[in-house]
């Protein structure tokens, strides 16, 4: 990896199929804390039956968020599929060997921990030792009786009953289970750890360059361009934004971190000063906003003057 200082390192937006994902937890924290961009976590936990409550990486960004970050030179787009190159067999073998030895080390450490926990639990008082001896003797007698009843050779039975073990430290007194112990082993899943993942060679710091290779195509239409400009204007005013689908708008707008505020505004982007706006839309947006204690913002983008004009709409409260 390049030896840039952390300040130079831009946020890595890993693009796959025209969607930008953030996989690095540090980047996710930076986005929220320093750039007031929240995104949406979409990673699910395989063992949870409900797949929409606890979510983890990757973070998915709105296309407007991606455009803003790249234009402000805070992030680069990585062509993720192409950054994953075919692995040389030597590299694969090395990766495999490292993974195996890591797993073995983890299992050994877990086993050692388990034994020492068990030993710590075993009492070494005389009474306890005596009790354990009696228990062992009883078990052996019971097994012998059973063998006689079933007509099995006593030797066989005696051999299968573990003899009472001397009580040295670290040796369990009860018979060990015949099953193989089960351990959890952590294996690295991130592509950043892999030799044949090369994001630097497939990074784009300009939207046009990404567009030229077919990696990123947003915005294309005047409406999409208007949405980008309105998003940028709201962001430059210090707002946090979220998706507006739950409230029938383009964005939700928060004066601060969404964890601390309910959003004050629902924003609808108006493509141009002359774009058709029907009274019915004003009613629908205004009424929903008022009912949810928010204001509805009509955000007009003027391509000629290159500026955003806001109008706040709420139900009048009479009539």
């Amino acid at each position, binding site marked *: 990896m390049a030896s840039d200082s952390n300040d130079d390192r831009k946020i890595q937006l890993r693009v796959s199929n025209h969607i930008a994902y953030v996989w690095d937890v540090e980047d996710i924290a930076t986005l929220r804390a320093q750039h007031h961009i929240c995104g949406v976590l979409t990673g699910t936990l395989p063992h949870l039956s409900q797949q929409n409550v606890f979510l983890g990486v990757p973070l998915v960004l709105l296309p407007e968020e991606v455009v803003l970050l790249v234009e402000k030179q805070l992030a680069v787009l990585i062509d993720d599929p192409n950054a994953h190159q075919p692995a040389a067999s030597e590299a694969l073998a090395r990766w495999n060997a490292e993974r195996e030895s890591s797993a073995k080390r983890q299992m050994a450490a877990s086993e050692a921990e388990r034994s020492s926990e068990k030993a710590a639990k075993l009492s070494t008082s005389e009474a306890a030792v005596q009790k354990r001896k009696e228990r062992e003797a009883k078990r052996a007698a019971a097994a012998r009786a059973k063998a006689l009843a079933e007509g099995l050779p006593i030797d066989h039975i005696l051999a299968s009953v573990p003899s009472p073990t001397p009580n040295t430290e670290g040796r369990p007194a009860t018979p060990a289970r015949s099953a193989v112990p089960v351990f959890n082993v952590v294996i690295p899943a991130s592509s950043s750890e892999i030799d044949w993942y090369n994001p630097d060679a497939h990074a784009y710091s300009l939207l046009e360059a990404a567009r030229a290779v077919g990696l990123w195509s947003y915005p294309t239409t005047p409406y999409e361009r208007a949405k980008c400009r309105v998003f940028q204007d709201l962001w430059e*005013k210090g707002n946090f934004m979220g998706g507006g689908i739950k409230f029938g708008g383009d964005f939700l707008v928060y004066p601060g971190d969404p964890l601390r505020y309910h959003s*004050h*505004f629902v924003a609808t982007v*108006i493509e141009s*000063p*002359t*774009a*058709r*706006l*029907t*009274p*019915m839309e*004003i*009613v629908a947006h*205004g009424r929903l*906003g*008022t009912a949810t*204690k*928010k*204001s509805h*913002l*009509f955000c*007009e983008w003027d391509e000629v003057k290159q500026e955003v*004009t*806001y*109008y*706040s*709409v*709420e*139900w*009048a*409260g*009479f*009539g």
Partner: protein
Amino acid sequence: MERHPSYQILSASLSKYPKAAGALFQTYNDLKLAQQWSDLEVIEVPGCSRYALRGRRPNTDVVLNVVPCSLSESLSTDWIRTTFRELNSPAHVYLAINTEDSSIVYYKISPGIVKPPL
């Protein structure tokens, strides 16, 4: 319509912009008789080819501006901008949206990002 008491006051305004006449007439009557506003006057908004109304809600001193329109019209943010300009930049403009069954809904439009009331 001509026999209605309000017609006299509004006749000039109604004939100047015929397409907006229905909405103006309905809104004027609603504000005067149902909402009981006082000191109602008619203000021309030539850029939007209509007249607007100005008056006070019962027991208040604040003068409010109301622009009537019909549910079937096509507006735009330019249209809204024009109403603010020609009404001398009030703090808010109320849009009175009229329907064919004579229902009216009023929506308050304010320029800029205005926080909702608590």
